[in-house]
């Protein structure tokens, strides 16, 4: 039983979650302030991975990253980076794919905070950033934790995108979900079962953890 796909999946989920925390936190804050049409369109775009089949994302990434043309060619020639069939490419795909899970809970929590909180802070001469860091953020801790755990768990479940752009390379792009698919194709049901069970156990523990943690903090477990 080769455990490398499990480690690779955990590594991908950890890196994706960290990157999305850095990108998603300011984005969610920006989206939570005001409702211009522009912001609504941006938010809709970032939410698309929830409703689109992952294969659509995979297909466009395949076209975008092809070393034959456009962005892919430029990346290849200037930086010698190839995003298809590489771990970097999976990270980029996962960041797009799990974006709604990071932004959603944080944004709705920020919007539910009473506006007097921020206003009181501004009145006392604090800047926007200071206010966000020391007033708003501590007040939405449970939602941030939810966002982190959901992003991590969701990335563990990534399959369609990786199938399109991964190339099934051991230790590089052969994540656990692909290993399950691969084992079933090889009729090695014992391995398929082992990978599946590990994935199930991991994600189940995480989701239950979030639900228990949010019992007293939120009206619904996914807030």
């Amino acid at each position, binding site marked *: 039983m080769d455990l490398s796909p499990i480690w690779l999946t955990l590594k991908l989920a950890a890196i994706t979650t960290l990157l999305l925390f850095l990108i998603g936190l300011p984005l969610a804050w920006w989206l939570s302030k005001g409702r211009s049409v522009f912001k609504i369109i941006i938010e809709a775009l970032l939410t698309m991975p*929830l409703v689109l089949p992952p294969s659509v994302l995979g297909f466009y990434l395949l076209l975008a990253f092809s*070393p034959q043309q456009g962005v*892919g060619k430029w990346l290849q020639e200037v930086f010698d980076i190839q995003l298809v069939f590489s771990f970097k490419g999976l990270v980029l795909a996962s960041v797009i794919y799990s974006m709604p899970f990071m932004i*959603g809970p944080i944004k709705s929590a920020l919007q539910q905070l009473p506006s007097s909180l921020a206003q009181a802070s501004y009145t006392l001469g604090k800047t926007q950033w200071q206010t966000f860091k020391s007033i708003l953020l501590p007040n939405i801790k449970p939602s941030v934790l939810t966002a982190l755990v959901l992003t991590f768990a969701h990335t563990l479940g990534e399959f369609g995108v990786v*199938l399109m752009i991964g*190339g099934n390379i051991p230790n590089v792009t052969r994540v656990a979900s692909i290993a399950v698919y*691969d084992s079933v*194709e*090889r009729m090695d049901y014992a391995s398929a079962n082992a990978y599946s069970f590990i994935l199930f156990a991991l994600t189940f523990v995480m989701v239950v953890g979030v639900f228990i943690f949010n019992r007293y903090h939120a009206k619904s477990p*996914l807030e």
Partner: protein
Amino acid sequence: MSFQGLGAVVKRLLITIVFFSVAFANSLGQGVRVATAANLQSVIGALKADFKKRSGIAIEPIVGSSGKLVAQINNGAPFDVFLSADMDFPQALYKKGLATKAPVAYAFGKLVICSRQNIGFANWERDLLAPVVKKIVIANPDVAPYGVAAKEALQTQGIFDDVQSKLVFGESIAQVNTYITTGVVDVGFTSQALINDPANKAKLYWQAIDPKLYTPIEQGMILLNRASKNAGALKFYNYLQSADAKRIFAKYGYK
């Protein structure tokens, strides 16, 4: 985002359930369902049209890697005929009692090396070692017979270990062809059917691999048990062994 995430999951589950019920309802009709190895995806269209013209019977191809189709057949997938990319898969199904007759060879596949770049290929076993070739795609040798042949050719030339770090695995020959024609890989090993496929719009540079370098890709088929209730399935099975079908196979790059 309350319930949005969960809602999407539940919705996707419901859609999946509906889709499968529809698929199974369809399977109860009297079409001929043909589980088709991915390398045949272009020629099966021509065979389907020709057979329809001669018999009035419509076949319904389901295309996937041979290994995946075998797994589905093992689990009771409602197929009448199985066209594999090798002889071993159908033989295994026959031994298990899932087919009425022993496998029959219907075509021999040809392995080619090809690329969107003009690499030359005069000495492909040396060209592949060049630093300009970064990614080489072959079908997954565990589930796709063309992958086995490609691996054999690389091993016979003694360069398999040298190029291993450049290898990318397509889950079937169809994905291999996608990677070659979109140019995300530099070089790929595939079936000559890709070169002869009128649907392929990409300009490809290619060369046939010397047949001495790999075990012949003898492609076998079986009539599955479900076909005993379906006269059309037997007709199609016989048609595939006719001179008419052989002509179409030849046109698409099979022996």
